[in-house]
């Protein structure tokens, strides 16, 4: 399993911090509400543990997007079910949300948060990736055939207290991609 040095860990965290700042700004401007940010958590996991993490998303609505290019992996946006209606209300959805509207809401928020998080991350590291369309994701339909020998998970949390809105974005990178991402990070640290 991959191990990061303290400096690499700090650098990844800072780069992700900037990316999630951009994502939160995009959401805050859309709904005219301040979004609280967490400190990004970075963890190296076995594929089984990553799978377990995904299966644990049952109290949330989730959507996944895969990305390909100079690094590849999965971005998963997971929104606590409890805060969805309040957000939907601000975003002018008809309440109560039916299945189709829920999926539409989740996919829209995913596009904003996952897109900005990944875009911020790759542009700072001058990597090129292409993000595929998000798909609604039910944890019971586990992501099969992850043949990655090790996964690096970067997790960030967006909260809007008074709405009970709580969304997590997980970026999973495969082992080869971690190495690719570390090349520009090490260069930044050496300059």
């Amino acid at each position, binding site marked *: 399993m991959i191990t990061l040095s303290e*400096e690499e860990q*700090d*650098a990844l*965290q*800072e*780069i992700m*911090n*900037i990316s*999630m*700042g*951009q994502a*939160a*700004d995009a959401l*805050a*401007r859309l709904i005219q509400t*301040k*979004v609280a*940010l967490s*400190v990004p958590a970075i963890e190296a996991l076995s594929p089984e543990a990553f799978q377990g993490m995904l299966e644990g998303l049952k109290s949330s609505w989730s959507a996944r997007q895969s990305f390909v290019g100079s690094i590849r992996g999965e971005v998963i946006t997971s929104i606590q079910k409890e805060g969805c209606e309040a957000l939907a209300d601000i975003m002018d959805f008809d309440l109560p949300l039916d299945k189709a509207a829920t999926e539409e809401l989740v996919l829209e928020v995913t596009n904003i948060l996952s897109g900005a998080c990944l875009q911020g991350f790759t542009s*700072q590291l001058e990597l090129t990736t292409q993000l595929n369309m998000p798909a609604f994701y039910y944890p019971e339909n586990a992501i099969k055939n992850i043949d990655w020998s090790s996964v690096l998970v970067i997790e960030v949390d967006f909260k809007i207290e008074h709405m009970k809105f709580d969304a997590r974005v997980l970026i999973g990178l495969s082992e080869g991609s971690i190495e690719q991402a570390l090349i520009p990070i090490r260069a*930044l*640290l050496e*300059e």
Partner: protein
Amino acid sequence: MAIPITIADDSALSRKTIRRVLPADWDVTVHEAKNGVEALEAVNNGLAEVLFLDLQMPQMNGYEVLHELHDKHKKTIVIVISADIQPEAQALVNSLGAFRFLKKPISAEELSDTLQEVGLL
């Protein structure tokens, strides 16, 4: 004479990045602080005529540092460099007396323009 400046940020990469984009012809002595407490110490010890201040830091965050400087009527020129770029963060920082709010990732050009605007270059 060289101006004492302090870069306050908990991330080593971020402190390094700010050092890297400082104008080459700006005569300064650079100090570093890893949290708000160290940032205030630097100000009190005369090491921060200009303070580059991150907002999210452990122990004491950037907002608390701004409050403290404001309450004590300190003359330090504070330039906030933040990853949280939401309109509310910018408004709060401005109300607390920061000279400028710059977004991370910071570029050399942007920093140079800002220093010129506030009359430091």
